[in-house]
């Protein structure tokens, strides 16, 4: 902190040291790039974790919060804010420093209309083209359909016979004559067609409906023969606007939405959100509740990894490749265990502020131990099977290699990053709950290829089983819920909380303005970063390898389009 102040006198407007892991600073917009460069080069802040836009409408300001941290050199997270006026907002882009700032800034631009100077491709990412220019996440966005008048999108039959739903300018805007000017940019299709250089190249669509996609997203490949020359990615097909919805729900209601972001990781999403709100409320859950949370988080990690690996294997060898079915059978046991605690199979909505909803059922440990033992044997069998399959290793080895440097630069986290020899795990970097008391190791691999990513996942299952077994041994008796008032109204403030999702670094940034509802919720999801890293990874691969690479990332579209 003081280093920044001495290096850039006068440009740090505000600062707050929350703990030894969180640093909040507000800097001068003019000096943003210089300070970031200083932090990156001199202070090892080599991981651009995300960025959030905040509409401070009462102060007539926009805030852009850049979340910077390091891949293991230290554990400080810098939340660096810049404030710009609301009319003609413009911030200097960080894409020159961090490659992966690209998508985060695009999202802020399309949602808030904050221009990023020097951004190479400021095109909409999540929004449909019709909505660009309305800046829907601004606090003064009226919404369409309008909740007061009930007007809806207008049906129009296009020249090719397809029905389209157009969103017309808001009637009040037309009346007042302030219809905003729509930004001009080449559409996705124009952008990709501009890349076709010769007759031997063509664009092949994979998605939005295709066997490889885990949810609807569009992966367009510019191919020549069987070689991919360039890949284009379009997401946003199922964008739900969860961050905006949560602004309009009370804190407790918000938990339900975190489930729906990714059904395989609903417990960890709950955990991340509740943890952030707990920081705002300044409470810590009782120890028994912490253990229950850890047990559930690890169970959900195992089942997510099993399904991810199984799905990935079907991508390699058609749906007839048998291990998939066996993984689903094994996963069923775990889902049954989770159901016995939470009462739900996938959308648990289980974690509460300052505790959990239910206690463990009677005899849970006796029920869980044999299942975990069997799970461990089966996982070792899978690892053995995949390792000894010559066709599998031939297909996977050396495919989609991410060198440690590239993996860090592209901003991926979780198993893909750890497979690239970077022991970066939120459970170690930003310890929460009772993780510091537990013994586990961070699984890494040197190779960084698709095979290594799958190996990391399978071995993490073993580590998670080890963690759960320790929890079952150590879990104390006691209460499971802190006493809280019925209406949860945190003091004005903000908190950023990270957990290790099955897929990587999941962070929730929650701002409170003292009311019953959060002022702003920002989700930093791991799959968002994977997806961004996918196009450069696919360049030069064979079409068949696209499947292997994309599958080995274990993506979840629902979370990207949250």
């Amino acid at each position, binding site marked *: 902190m003081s280093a920044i102040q001495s290096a850039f006198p006068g440009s740090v407007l505000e600062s707050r040291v929350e703990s030894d892991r969180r640093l909040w600073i507000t800097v001068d917009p003019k000096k943003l790039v210089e300070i970031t460069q200083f932090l990156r080069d001199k202070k090892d802040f080599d991981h651009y974790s995300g960025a959030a836009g905040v509409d401070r409408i009462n102060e007539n300001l926009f805030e852009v919060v850049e979340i910077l941290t390091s891949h293991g050199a230290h554990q400080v997270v810098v939340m660096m804010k810049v404030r710009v006026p609301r009319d003609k907002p413009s911030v200097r882009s960080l894409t020159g420093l961090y490659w992966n700032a690209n998508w985060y800034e695009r999202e802020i631009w399309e949602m808030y209309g904050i221009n990023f100077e020097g951004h190479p491709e400021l095109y909409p990412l999540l929004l449909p083209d019709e909505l660009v220019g309305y800046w829907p996440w601004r606090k003064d966005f009226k919404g369409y359909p309008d909740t007061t008048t009930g007007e809806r999108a207008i049906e129009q039959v296009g020249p090719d016979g397809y029905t389209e739903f157009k969103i017309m300018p808001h009637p009040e805007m037309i009346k007042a004559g302030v219809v905003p000017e729509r930004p001009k940019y080449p559409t996705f299709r124009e952008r990709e067609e501009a890349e076709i250089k010769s007759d031997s190249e063509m664009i092949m669509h994979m998605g939005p409906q295709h066997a490889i996609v885990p949810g609807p997203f569009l992966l367009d490949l510019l191919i020549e023969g*069987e070689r991919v020359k360039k890949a284009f990615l379009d997401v946003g097909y199922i964008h739900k606007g969860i961050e905006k919805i949560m602004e309009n729900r009370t804190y407790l209601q918000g938990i339900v939405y975190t489930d729906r972001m990714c059904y395989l990781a609903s417990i960890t999403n709950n955990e991340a959100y509740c943890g952030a709100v707990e920081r705002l409320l300044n409470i810590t859950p009782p120890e028994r509740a912490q253990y229950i949370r850890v047990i559930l988080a690890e169970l959900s990690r195992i089942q997510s990894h099993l399904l991810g690996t199984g799905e990935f294997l079907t991508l390699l*060898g058609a749906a*007839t490749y048998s291990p*998939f079915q066996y993984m689903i059978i094994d996963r069923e046991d775990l889902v049954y265990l989770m159901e016995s605690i939470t009462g739900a199979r996938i959308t648990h909505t289980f974690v509460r502020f300052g505790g959990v909803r239910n206690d463990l059922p009677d005899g849970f440990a006796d029920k869980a131990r044999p299942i975990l033992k069997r799970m461990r044997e089966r996982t070792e069998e899978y690892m053995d099977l995949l390792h000894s*399959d010559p066709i599998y290793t031939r*297909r996977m080895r050396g495919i989609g290699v991410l060198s440690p440097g590239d993996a860090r630069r592209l901003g991926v986290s979780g198993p893909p990053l750890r497979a690239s020899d970077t022991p970066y795990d939120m459970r170690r970097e930003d310890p929460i709950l009772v993780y510091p008391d537990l013994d586990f190791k961070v699984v890494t691999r040197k190779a960084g290829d698709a095979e290594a990513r799958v190996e990391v996942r399978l071995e993490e299952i073993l580590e998670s089983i080890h963690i759960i077994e320790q929890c079952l041994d150590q879990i104390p008796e006691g209460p499971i819920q802190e006493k809280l008032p019925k209406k949860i109204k945190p003091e004005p403030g903000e908190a950023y909380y990270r957990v290790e999702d099955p897929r990587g670094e999941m962070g929730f940034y929650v701002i409170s303005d003292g009311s019953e509802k959060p002022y702003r919720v920002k989700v930093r999801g791991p799959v968002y970063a994977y997806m961004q890293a996918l196009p450069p990874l696919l360049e030069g691969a064979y079409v*068949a390898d*696209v499947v292997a690479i994309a599958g080995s990332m274990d993506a979840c579209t629902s979370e990207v389009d949250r």
Partner: protein
Amino acid sequence: MYLSTIIEAVSAWAAQEPKIYALAIGLIGAAIISAVINIGAMAVVWLERKFLGDIQARFGPNRVGSRWGLLQLGADAIKLFTKEDSIPRGADKPVYVWAPIIASITTMLVAAAIPFGALRIDGKDYPLVVANMDISAFYVEAALSIMTIAVFMAGFSSNNKYSMLGAFRGIARMIAYEVPMGVCVIAVALMAHSLNLVEIVESQTLWYAFAQPLGFIVFTIALVTDLGRIPFDQSEAEEEIIAGYTTEYGGIRWGLLYFQEYINMLLGSILLVLLFLGGWKGPSIPLITVLSPMVWFLMKVLIVLIFLIWVRGSLVRFRIDQVTDLGWKWMLPLSLVNLAWAAFVGLYFA
């Protein structure tokens, strides 16, 4: 025995009226063949769905036609026949329409020359073959390659990128594996001193799978490749190119393309049994002496089929460049080594 008298009478008549005999046997044979291979292929499909279900810890068809799902295929066939027949707007119509037909014709052509077992009458095996020609092994090989043309027609005429890629892959793969497959057949013919499938079977006092193990392995791999089954189903890899060259086909046209794959699988298994596993040869079984070659033959074919299904359930798919690599760099040299071995052994011991 009265059976042998019937045979003698028929042979005498055939010697008198060779042209009428050929016409009659052709017509009857064609009818029987189409019935046998289609019903056989249905049985193969059923077997695959059921056995694959077992491998994958699920049930497979178990509703239509008792708990064994025996009528499931009939229901599927009715569904395919009654579906709307649609042709994509941009398709090359005649080529599109003819591709599945040519695929079916190919399978018929192959089936005509293949002996479907034999009957043992008075200690002599009478093979059940329609066209017993001198070069039937060679002919079957050649007719099988016509499939490549059907695949190309289907992929090219659909006017679809996935179909096109699938057709390219299919052709690259088939060319790479037809050659070693043919060389293996030549090696067998060298040992048997004949290209006639019936004579090849009869000359197998020792199964050729043991006499030339290398050739057996190469031929089996090439056969799986030729059938386009996992791990060599790149031409219709669902996860990469939707359904390859069959992407734009629907209804009964797709049904024909799909069905000929299973007919080919049946014929391929039979060919493997004939060339390498001693065909219908086996000791006589008391009480059903006449049918005993049939029993041995079907048992061997069933084992080969189950092997093929097992492979599908337990392996992942190769990448197309790895397939062609394997074909040209390993299978072809190995098949040539096998040819040299067969020539050497055939010269000194046979």
